[in-house]
């Protein structure tokens, strides 16, 4: 089970894997994620299901190498098997006809918005996608999103592709241009989602964010993923990962995300050593 069918480097640090998992492909909806345990000694990490092919029985996952477990995952080759894959998890995105939807993706978040863009478009929405990265080389999914969205806007921090600036600048201009926006969806690093929510809040535009807290069992049993939304504690793994962005306590989320930063380095060094020896 869970054989890797295809492996592709999307840029220097982002990889796409297409993996055999018929039962997950069958039940996956946009917004769902999986827990991946690449090897028996590795962590359980959450990754969005970037695409699912029911006929072939495969799903695709896209990840950035950010630590020990993603490094182990990236060391696997076509034909290798992922030790464990659990999904689909979380509450799927609510896909409906809203009118005009702006879908914003930052960094690897760009891969995560792809299924929502596709589904919202076929539900009859005008879908404006805004994607951003630090530089041109880090932009992913440009071609796919150009095909699937009604309009694609690109920003890079250094101006090597599209507009120089942030996705939120593009969002501000879009609002200023008088475009009537019914819903904004923002997926990416916490500061990016926070800024987008600040922008839309001022204009009272409903905004959904997909949160990326730490995850352990991902089935609602441990509570490491708890986030405060509207003053209430929620378990993002089973009640999310999508929430009303105007209600999310981003400061707490930021704090909770760094809980293991120091020790994680040790794990990463350990894996690097193992991989270079083996």
């Amino acid at each position, binding site marked *: 089970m869970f054989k890797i069918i295809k492996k592709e480097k999307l840029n220097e640090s982002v990889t796409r894997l297409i993996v055999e998992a018929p*039962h*997950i492909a069958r*039940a996956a909806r946009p917004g769902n994620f999986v827990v991946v*345990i690449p090897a028996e*000694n*590795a*962590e*359980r990490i959450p990754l969005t299901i970037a695409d699912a092919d029911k006929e072939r029985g495969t799903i695709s996952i896209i990840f950035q190498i950010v630590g*020990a*477990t993603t490094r*182990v995952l990236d060391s696997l080759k076509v034909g290798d098997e992922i*030790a*464990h*894959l*659990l*999904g*689909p*998890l979380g509450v799927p995105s609510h896909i409906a006809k809203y009118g005009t939807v702006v879908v914003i993706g930052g960094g690897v978040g760009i891969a995560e918005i792809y299924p929502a863009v596709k589904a919202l478009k076929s539900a009859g929405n005008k879908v404006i996608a805004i994607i951003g990265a630090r530089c041109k080389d880090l932009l992913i999914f440009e071609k796919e999103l150009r095909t699937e969205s009604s309009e694609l806007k690109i920003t890079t921090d250094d101006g090597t592709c599209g507009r120089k600036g942030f996705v939120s600048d593009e969002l501000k201009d879009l609002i200023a241009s008088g475009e009537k926006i019914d819903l904004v969806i923002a997926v990416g690093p916490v500061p990016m989602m926070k800024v987008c929510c600040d922008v839309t809040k001022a204009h009272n535009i409903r905004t959904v964010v997909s949160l990326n807290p730490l995850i*352990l*069992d991902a*089935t*609602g*049993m*441990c*509570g*490491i993923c*708890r986030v*405060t939304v509207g003053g209430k*504690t929620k378990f993002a793994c*089973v009640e999310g990962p999508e929430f009303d962005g105007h209600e999310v306590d981003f400061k*707490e989320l930021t*704090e*909770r995300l*760094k*809980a*293991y930063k120091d*020790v*994680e380095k*040790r*794990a990463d*060094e*350990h*894996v690097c050593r193992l991989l270079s020896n083996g």
Partner: protein
Amino acid sequence: MRERSAAERIRDFQEVPLGYTPEQAIEEAKRCIQCKNPKCVGGCPVEIDITGFLKFVAEGDFASAAEKIKETNALPAICGRVCPQEDQCEKECILGVKGEPVAIGSLERFVADWERESSPRPSTRYARSGHPSPSKMERGMNFDDSRKKGVRIAVVGSGPAGLTCAGDLARLGYQVTIFESLHVTGGVLTYGIPEFRLPKAIVNLEVEYVKSLGVEIKTDMLVGNVYTIEELLKEYKAVFIGSGAGLPKFMNIPGENLDGVYSANEYLFRVNMMKAWQFPEYLTPVKIGKRVAVVGGGNVAMDSARVSLRLGAEEVTILYRRTHDEMPARKEEIERAVEEGIVFKILTLPIKYHANNEGWVSEAECIQMELGEPDSSGRRRPVEIPNSNFKIPIDTVIVAIGNSPNPLVPHRTPNLKTEKWGGVIVTAAGLTSIPGVYAGGDIVRGAATVISAMGDGKVAAKAIHSFLGPTK
């Protein structure tokens, strides 16, 4: 029973009791006066023939003793270790009226361990002992084997409830598939109860035994998400839900979401399931500070506290809002925790956690309590003493105030009726509000015991058998 000294055992994750020697076991079993109407049997949720197995032990016939136990209990090595015998069989023992009851739990453990150690492989061990010979339950049922062939049954969850139900159904000839959401089987036996209280090798052996009966176990399968119960019913003639009480309760007090505040489930899951104590060989980290506070007074709190000690915490304090007498944990485990140097702050309720500059928890603000009138549980209700706030410096908090039934399957199964507090509603036979769907264990009772979960699994297996029997 002999035990390892506190000083020695807090440095590792090995078991505390050393077990009986055969001579000690025989001597202890001889204390049983073989009552004509043994009360102890009534105290056992699965009605082990206790006097029967004790008689064999007293005669030194351990193999027959094992066979006797397994007529009604397939997991004696586990029950002998974690059952609250002091509230069950041993509580009823007539010798307990004047002196010490017979140590039934320790003897059950001895017999199971003797059997395991004296035969190398699970298949031969079970072939030689109880299993192929019909159990009490099977003997009670005349059943045409051919009708069961190919009748498929789905079991949700591989904890004691699911394993027992699956095992019993498989022995009756059904084709059983267990769906387990985690990557390892065993439920709480694996992810909750620590190694020093229940060695995982023993749990694995019991799981292997259930597999050897022909039960298929699919891990990484979250029922409700991958397949709904409705979908399962299209492929399987009956479904048993044993999904446990995995939802951790929090107190909803300020600061509970600070870094350094764990639910007991998260903490134990990191250590037991993900082997964080072997970090970085195992990549999941756990951070344990110098001063750990554990909130709660049950088994889960004791386990969390004792694990913390073994992970190197310098001071571990249990914060409990009532007193020692009201603690729901097993007496034996409280005693061991005390021996190991765990500090007990009773009549203490945390009301707020404070953070240091880095957002990490640094102090627990508590309030002093006193006992008032008895509440609905019969225990005296703890009441706050006004203006008695005080702060304890800590760098880790483990919240162990209980777990609720796992809400996921009920959420995804609209017709499945539940209590307000989340428990799935069943009949005495374990039948839910959906025909063909049974449930048992912690998903029905809320956080309870291993033995009651097993008992429920048995009852449901029997009910499923008669539900499917006559009509096929």
